[in-house]
């Protein structure tokens, strides 16, 4: 034994009482080390934030802890006892439960069925009424409101998350792992989640929270560990930490990108309106209005922010603006003309880029290689081939350039896109769409799941587009982001534009009123 190294069987006092102690965890994918000798310690009764850039190895580490991945080396001790966690079943037995970033629910099943799935306390004979009653009892006991008979496919992201958490807690979990739990939640849902987490902690349990939102981390976490490039680089208490000190730890010694401020100068030709909606309505297959008589101008050389609680028509709006969906009523005007391009491809050729909200399902072909995903917008052009033929080497060269510009951390363009971490998928899509957006870029929640550095890079990219005379539509739930980036902010509520404010007249309070469907006390121009 080398000096300074701890003997394996006799752990020091602090480590023995630790809920979780991971030592030297290493895990590689395709030869790339996602975790490289990571140490991580979790005490009872604490909320421990796990921070790091996209691809720093946070999710991998937690998947090792919950038995989904087997580490190449390293050991895990739960309450002082070294254990091998060979499967999720072992993790559950050890009291560890995880709520994944992409929910692991069966969409076709009801809430009650999902809660009782694979649980040894589920009665052998299933009867919908008793399952519903048991689910209701659990819901009351843990203070998480769910409707037992509803189909999971019909629930909002926040409701689905409550189902996941309830399922995990019902199995007697003492260590709850949450992977970016607030990314898809509305502010009210975040408050409810945090209240539930505090109650959970008060019972002596522990929470591991993976998050990019440093404000939230400082608000709720007691301790934190920072990961960078597959290693844990700092660990300690959140007391005395600030957003900027955390950001520096996360990004490392490289220069911290300055927060990109709005460019106040006007862009020449800014009066032009490349894309406009006139009385646009969109209905879903049940005939329910998603957009209801929307008038909107996207001006050249401006960033138009779209505020609103998710689910108020944002998806339909972005699909109408990019030609994916044709309105049931009203007109989409391109340069003032309603008879121009039709359909997503013609819109794209005309110069409309689109960063959709669900990148894995609507922006990427997840099983195709990275390189082919990178050239999805260009494969028909001369840069990739000629006539009906594709030239693989030209294609590869083009893909290489896009991937490099996107600063994606996986360098091999032959790896399937689904193997990228969520943030890197987003970077790739953002870069691909930025390239074709010669007139308009429509970006739905483009910073969701991105780390601080990537957010700054993305904002800088949008400001550069604005400066070159492109109209940018930025759909976001984060008022701070909109106030910092946008020139005008339109608020969506129940499929209608509740109001449009120049940013000089907008503040969090006024936007909040509009977002909740109330009318502003004074008239707005």
């Amino acid at each position, binding site marked *: 034994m080398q000096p300074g190294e701890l003997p394996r069987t006799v752990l020091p006092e602090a480590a023995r009482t630790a809920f979780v102690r991971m030592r030297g965890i290493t895990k590689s994918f395709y030869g790339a080390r996602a975790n490289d000798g990571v140490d991580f310690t979790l005490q009872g009764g604490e909320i421990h934030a796990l921070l790091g850039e996209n691809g720093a190895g946070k999710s991998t580490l937690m998947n090792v802890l919950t038995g989904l991945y087997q580490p190449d080396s390293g050991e895990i001790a739960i309450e002082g006892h070294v254990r091998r966690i060979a499967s999720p079943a072992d993790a559950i037995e050890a009291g560890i439960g995880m709520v994944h970033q992409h929910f692991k629910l069966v969409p076709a099943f009801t809430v009650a069925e999902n809660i009782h799935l694979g649980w040894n306390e589920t009665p052998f004979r*299933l009867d919908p009424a008793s399952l519903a009653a048991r689910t209701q009892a659990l819901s009351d006991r843990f203070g998480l409101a769910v409707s037992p008979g509803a189909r999971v496919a019909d629930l909002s992201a926040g409701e689905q998350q409550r189902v996941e958490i309830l399922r995990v807690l019902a199995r007697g979990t003492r260590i709850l792992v949450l992977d970016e739990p607030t990314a898809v939640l509305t502010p009210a849902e975040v408050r409810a989640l945090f209240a539930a987490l505090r109650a959970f902690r008060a019972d002596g349990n522990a929470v591991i929270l993976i998050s990019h939102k440093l404000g939230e981390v400082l608000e709720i976490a007691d301790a934190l560990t920072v990961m960078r490039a597959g290693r844990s680089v700092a660990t300690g208490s959140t007391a005395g930490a600030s957003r900027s000190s955390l950001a520096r730890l996360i990004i490392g010694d490289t220069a911290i990108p300055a927060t990109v401020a709005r460019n106040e100068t006007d862009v020449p030709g800014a009066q032009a309106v490349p894309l406009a909606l006139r009385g646009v309505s969109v209905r879903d297959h049940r005939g329910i209005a998603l957009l209801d008589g929307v008038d909107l101008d996207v001006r050249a050389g401006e960033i138009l922010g779209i505020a609103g609680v998710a689910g108020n028509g944002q998806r339909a709006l972005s699909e109408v603006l990019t030609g994916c969906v044709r309105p049931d009523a009203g007109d989409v005007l391109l340069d003032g003309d309603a008879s121009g391009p039709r359909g997503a491809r013609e819109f794209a050729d005309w110069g409309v880029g689109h960063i959709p909200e669900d990148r894995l399902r609507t922006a990427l072909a997840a099983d195709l290689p990275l390189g082919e995903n990178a050239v999805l917008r260009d494969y028909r052009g001369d840069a990739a081939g000629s006539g009906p033929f594709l030239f693989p080497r030209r294609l590869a060269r083009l893909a290489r350039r896009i991937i490099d510009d996107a600063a994606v951390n996986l360098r091999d363009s032959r790896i399937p896109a689904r193997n990228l971490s969520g943030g890197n998928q987003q970077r790739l899509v953002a870069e691909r769409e930025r390239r074709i957006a010669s007139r308009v870029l429509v970006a739905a929640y483009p910073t969701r799941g991105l780390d601080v550095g990537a957010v700054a890079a993305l904002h800088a990219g949008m400001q550069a587009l604005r400066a070159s005379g492109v109209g940018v539509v930025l759909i976001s739930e984060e008022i701070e982001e909109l106030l910092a980036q946008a020139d005008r902010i339109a608020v969506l509520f129940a499929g209608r534009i509740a109001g449009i404010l120049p940013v000089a007249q907008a503040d969090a309070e006024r936007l909040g009123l509009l977002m909740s469907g109330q009318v502003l006390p004074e008239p707005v121009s």
Partner: protein
Amino acid sequence: MSVVSGLLSNALVSGAVLALAGLGELLAERVGVLNLGVEGLMALGAMSAVAAVSGTHDPAVGVLAALATGAAAGSLFAFATVVARASQVLCGMALTMGGMGLAATLGRPFAGQPSAATFPVLPIPLLDRLPVLGDALFRQSLPVYVAFLILPLFLHWLLFRTRHGLALRAIGENPAACDAVGMKVLPLRFAYVVLGAAISAGAGAYLTLGFVPSWSDGVTAGRGWIAVALVIFAGYRPWRIVAGALLFGFVGALGYLAQARDWGIPSAFLGMLPYLVTLLFMMLPALTGRGRVAAPAALGVAYYRDQR
């Protein structure tokens, strides 16, 4: 036996083959494995049943032989698709072609001869005296009762009324979710693919010990494929599979009747009827626009855990 009674009885007998094969396929598809080898499994079961009864003269032994053969062939298929995660479509095709070829080769000594034993009729007391229906419904052999009553009743209860059934259905929908809550995805998939294959082979045993009853090359006549279609058409529900099987049996029986009575319809066309009806029924839900059949979401997709 009146005409109606005969028609119904015939429909039950020929429908029982489809019902059994379809219920076996249902088990595999519900856990997310598309087994296109039903035709081959039926041929293997049909041949091994005939071979087993030729020595023993006991239909029960024939059924056991068919089940065992089906389970063995099913294990091979399950190993390839569930454990080694090879293409389910290709492995299914291979099972069909290999099974039919193997059955034809091994069954040559018995080809064309009547089976040495058949299933005895098992009348249900009292009910069999009912007018018209009594003869048709309650004077059948045991496999018919199993196919139309006992097995669908059991499978419906298992799938929709038990904890175990919830697990099975969930594995066909989202294996990653099942894994995350600690269920053993691959062992369960393996077990139900094997069980389903055994039942499908059992359908072959009823074909050659009850319905036809003799073995010849090609005796399965595409019934395995109809069973696969039936499962989809029935929306992956046991009772509807059985009802669909009865309908197909009825169409087939109608063909025989028309031939016997000489209705003047070409026999080639009558022979085509079941297959035409299959096509029609597969298109029907799509054409009417409603009842889009919800297949298990993970059907045909191999499951990998340790991969992002």
